[in-house]
């Protein structure tokens, strides 16, 4: 027996034994234990294998700074790698496994890496696996990562749930130690709204007050702009999966805390001593040993050597001695030691070696002794099963540095202390460097075994790696970090940073302030991605927008498609119809009968005010002065750079009242653009506009029988005849006995068409009514697929053509650009390059054989040209098999397109093996004269 549970003491509940497993073996601990303390109590000292060399490793620390004891918790989809055993609260049934070993912890085949250590020194991978370059991603890196690397991902979906929360306070206290508790008490007593976050789970001595919130198991992991702090609270990690809270509630909560002021009371981490074989299990930080004794009643060893260079260690050694740990030797770096140490040694009857260092440790899977070099240079070998070391304390100043605050070296305590602080932050206690490192004499590297003197335990960086980095020119502290991986990854250099850069300073002959330090970035400790996502995952990753006829569409077996956030009916399959059959049937209904389609998703903007017309003249490229009340017009909007932004229609409902539609995809962008135009470019215009997209359910009713169906819905005496309500007319009739509606005679399909808008509450009812009213015409609901097919047959540009890279000229819409007025985009649209006829311009394509399908994205080349990018003349934007024509057609952007109508072009698709000749035709395939929509 080496490490063992003490017969009394500790903040554990000996009445509540808890069973757990580590690497499949059953152990017992008590409520109040961490996994680490429970393992130590069971004399389990070997807890992991190191990152690169697979060296046996044990616990060094008792808190979040622990670099070695990373374990995998739980199993199946719940498996979580890289958890520090020192912060895992024990619960009944906890399953933990060591990481990074094969096949087992005690017998690790990859330990052979240790023999190859000379090969694995800093920069080895970069230097060795350079050639050939293509091998790096496919071969070298995966192989290296398998051999090195930390824990494994479960490769299953995370079954846990997470949530987010927004907290606000006057004072945020970070850390529940003595200083933090004092600060929280004082601030709360003064009446401030106070939040205290503490990483641990030990109850804190704080009053119960309405203005004081205490979050336990809560890590403040980052500082952000404007007094915002990121924190993660672990809600059920300490509970068995069967616990009701763990079953129903979220596992963790991501908190965004906004605080006027913050008090950082994060304490200090103890520095390891860097000497030969200092990574053997049983070599621990002195403060951690004391913590295991006092808090968990665990003695990590029976026979200890103390290695120190300052006086803070003294009370901790007393604690060890009081717990019955024999103190075999106190190795004090300082030539004359100190009064405090002399008094201690006398009291506990332990020899002091002043002016001495430890050269190296001995042992295989645990420390069995050390070699001391005394002041005269004599080597003294001392057996022991525990080394308690302390090279001084480092203030935990990570959070002070997240907004680029630079730590300052304090020579008196040989430690970095916080420098410039984030706005509103104050640092107290050990975190500020108060009361630490009494009478310290720094020692950065001890003994003659730099290749086995570990600085960064987690990343397996040795003193030799640092010396090598300097020799190879990586002497700047940031270079050193990247070259050696010192202080990287989950560890963030908590125990290693200062030792590392002090060794670098020694090597370069500079002082530590001259050498500088790397700064820290969030997160302070690892944060699960799941908690950052919170509830926004799976189908809730983004919100879903439903149309006002959604329930109708569901009831009529629609297949849906995501269009931005919208869920739209794509087609309405009947019986065993496949997509193509359904779309062909829907198109046929519109071309030869009547159909209807929900077009609510088009952006609808209500525009009112005395300057409405002026505003439309300004934002649209075409003219609006002469649009009569009761008429609709197609509108083309340019961006300021002269390219087409969006198209749509705008109807004049009154003298100074218009309603605009945009494309579905650009609805928000157009609204934003109009706000910009009004607020910034034309603030003098007296116009108001507001989105009414959600207010109105809008259905397109199209087909030769559309008027007959509509006639039955519109209340008399409204006259729908072609003369009274011609193509591009607009009106506000009532329908179905008094429901206020908006009616527009518009055609996207090319057939006689209307768009009918009613308040959104009537959406489903109107769709159902249309089915009933139009039953004798076999009225057919159609989806976005048929809509898209018909617009391609009519050559209307849509998303694939309005791609942000096309001009009005490219789309054959140059005639719309007004010459009588100024408008957004006018000047830049006139640039010669934007009106160059050689620009790819909209044309139609038909395969010469009238059979082979064309695919969007295919490239266009002259039939005789070589298949090179230099000969590329354009590409296919939209392609379908036309139900109306009975063969494939496409829209394309082709250089000098309109002038080449009648020629043949090669449609080449190297990705999907498409290669076909096509006739260049005008982009309107169906009813080019447009007589049908005027019927």
């Amino acid at each position: 027996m080496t490490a063992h549970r003490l017969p009394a003491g500790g903040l554990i509940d000996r009445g509540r034994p808890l069973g757990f497993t580590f690497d499949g073996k059953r152990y017992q601990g008590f409520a109040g234990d961490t996994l680490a303390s429970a393992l130590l109590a069971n004399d389990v000292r070997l807890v992991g294998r190191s990152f690169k060399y697979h060296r046996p490793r044990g616990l060094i620390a008792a808190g979040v700074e622990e670099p070695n004891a990373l374990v995998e918790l739980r199993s199946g989809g719940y498996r979580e790698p890289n958890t520090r055993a020192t912060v895992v609260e024990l619960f009944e049934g906890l399953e933990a496994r060591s990481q990074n070993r094969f096949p087992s912890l005690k017998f690790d085949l990859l330990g052979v890496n240790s023999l190859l250590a000379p090969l694995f020194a800093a920069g080895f991978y970069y230097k060795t696996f350079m050639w050939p370059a293509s091998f790096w991603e496919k071969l070298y890196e995966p192989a290296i990562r398998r051999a090195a690397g930390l824990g494994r991902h479960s490769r299953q979906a995370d079954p846990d749930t997470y949530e987010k929360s927004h907290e606000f306070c006057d004072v945020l206290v970070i850390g529940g130690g003595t200083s933090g508790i004092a600060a929280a008490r004082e601030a709360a007593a003064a009446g401030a709204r106070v939040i205290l976050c503490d990483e641990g789970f030990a109850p804190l001595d704080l009053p119960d007050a309405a203005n004081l919130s205490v979050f336990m198991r809560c890590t403040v992991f980052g500082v952000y702009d404007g007094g915002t702090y990121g924190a993660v609270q672990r809600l059920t990690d300490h509970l068995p999966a069967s616990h009701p809270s763990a079953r129903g509630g979220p596992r963790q909560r991501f908190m965004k805390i906004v605080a006027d002021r913050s008090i950082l009371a994060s304490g200090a981490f103890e520095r390891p001593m860097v000497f030969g074989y200092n990574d053997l299990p049983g070599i621990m930080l002195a403060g951690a040993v004391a913590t295991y004794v006092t808090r968990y009643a665990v003695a990590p060893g029976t026979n200890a050597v103390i290695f120190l260079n300052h006086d803070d260690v003294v009370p901790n050694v007393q604690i060890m001695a009081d717990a019955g740990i024999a103190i075999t030797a106190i190795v004090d770096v300082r030539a004359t030691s100190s009064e405090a140490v002399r008094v201690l040694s006398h009291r506990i009857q332990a020899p002091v070696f002043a002016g001495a260092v430890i050269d190296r440790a001995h042992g295989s899977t645990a420390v069995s002794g050390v070699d001391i070099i005394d002041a005269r240079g004599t080597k003294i070998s001392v057996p022991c099963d525990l080394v308690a070391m302390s090279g001084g304390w480092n203030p935990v100043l990570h959070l002070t540095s997240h907004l680029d605050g630079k730590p300052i070296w304090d020579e008196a305590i040989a430690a970095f202390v916080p420098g410039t602080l984030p706005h509103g932050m104050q640092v107290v206690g050990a975190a500020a460097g108060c009361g630490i490192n009494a009478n310290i004499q720094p020692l950065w590297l001890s003994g003659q075994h730099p290749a086995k003197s570990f600085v960064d335990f987690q990343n397996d960086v040795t003193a030799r790696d640092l010396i090598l980095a300097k020799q190879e020119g990586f002497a700047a502290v940031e270079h050193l970090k990247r070259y050696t991986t010192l202080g990287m990854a989950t560890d963030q250099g908590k125990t290693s940073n200062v030792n590392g850069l002090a060794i670098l300073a020694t090597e370069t002959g500079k002082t530590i302030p001259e050498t500088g330090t790397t700064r820290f970035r969030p997160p302070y400790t690892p944060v699960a991605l799941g908690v950052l996502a919170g509830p926004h995952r799976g189908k809730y990753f983004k919100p879903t927008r439903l149309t006002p006829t959604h329930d109708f569409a569901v009831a009529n077996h629609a297949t849906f498609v995501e269009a931005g956030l919208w869920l739209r009916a794509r087609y309405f399959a009947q019986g065993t119809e496949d997509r193509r059959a359904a779309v062909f049937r829907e198109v046929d209904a519109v071309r030869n009968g009547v159909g209807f389609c929900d077009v609510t998703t088009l952006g609808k903007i209500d525009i009112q005010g005395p300057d409405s017309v002026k505003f439309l003249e300004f934002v649209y490229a075409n003219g609006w002065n002469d649009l009569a009340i009761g008429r609709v017009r197609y509108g083309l909007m340019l961006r300021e750079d002269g390219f087409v932004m969006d198209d749509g229609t705008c109807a004049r409902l009154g003298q100074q009242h218009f309603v605009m539609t945009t494309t579905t995809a650009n609805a928000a962008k157009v609204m934003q653009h109009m706000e910009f135009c009004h607020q910034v470019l034309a603030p003098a215009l007296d116009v108001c506009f507001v989105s009414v997209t959600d207010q109105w359910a809008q259905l397109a009713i199209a087909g030769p029988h559309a008027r007959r169906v509509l006639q039955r819905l519109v209340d008399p005496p409204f006259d729908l005849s072609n003369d009274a309500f011609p193509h591009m007319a607009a009106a506000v009739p009532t329908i179905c006995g008094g429901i206020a509606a908006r009616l527009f005679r518009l055609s996207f399909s090319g057939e006689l068409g209307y768009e009918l808008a009613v308040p959104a509450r009537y959406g489903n009812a109107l769709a159902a009514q249309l089915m009933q009213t139009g039953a004798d015409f076999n009225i057919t609901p159609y989806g976005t697929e048929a809509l898209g097919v018909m617009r391609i047959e009519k050559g209307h540009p849509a998303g694939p053509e309005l791609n942000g890279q096309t001009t009005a000229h490219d789309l054959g819409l140059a005639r719309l650009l007004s010459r009588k007025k100024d408008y957004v985009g006018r000047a830049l649209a006139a640039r010669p390059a934007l009106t160059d006829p050689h620009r790819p311009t909209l044309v139609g394509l038909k395969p010469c054989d009238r059979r082979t399908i064309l695919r969007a994205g295919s490239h266009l080349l002259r039939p005789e040209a070589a298949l090179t990018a230099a000969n590329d003349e354009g590409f296919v934007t939209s392609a379908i098999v036309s139900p109306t024509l009975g063969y494939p057609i496409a829209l394309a952007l082709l250089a000098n397109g309109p002038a080449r109508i009648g020629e043949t072009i090669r449609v080449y698709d190297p990705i999907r093996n498409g290669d076909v000749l096509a006739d260049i035709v005008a982009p309107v395939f169906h009813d080019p004269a447009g007589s049908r929509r005027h019927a």
Partner: protein
Amino acid sequence: MLDIAPLKFPESEVLQSLSRMSIAGIAAFKGRRAALEAALGLTLPHTPRRVAHGTTNYLWNGHDAWLAMSETPALLENLTTVAAKFAAITDQSDGFVAFRVSGFHRRAILKKLVPIDLHQDVFAPDAVALTLAGQLPVKLWMQDDGSFALAGLRSFSRALHHALEEAAREFVHPGHD
């Protein structure tokens, strides 16, 4: 007339949908704010506040813009008659769906979704916020009974209800329908 099938949402003791209201957008034309206020017979808020006037609530909705909310079906007609000369009046009764979050835990529910401080000393009883609930834009205000109301776009109403329901789950007693 067409039959209306109103949107249905499961309710709990802390989350209900608000009964249908008439909602009208009001945006004052340039320099006509005073005339608008005179016509309506009240002072409209300059800041994110709510004022009650008769049975109508006026919620600040941006610069010189408000949302009027009322149980009165004639709201739009009345406003148009009185104020159309001074402001753009827009029917939004079908544009928004509103939910009520009530009970002791109402702030604990909302802080999971809403990124603003709803503490009673900060968010006054007549305060209004144009903010987010999760990923969804909402108009948020406190009702006279101390409960919170959130109005979101109709097309997002199921998404908003889902977000609220999830946030409230831990405070809802199982079995309550």
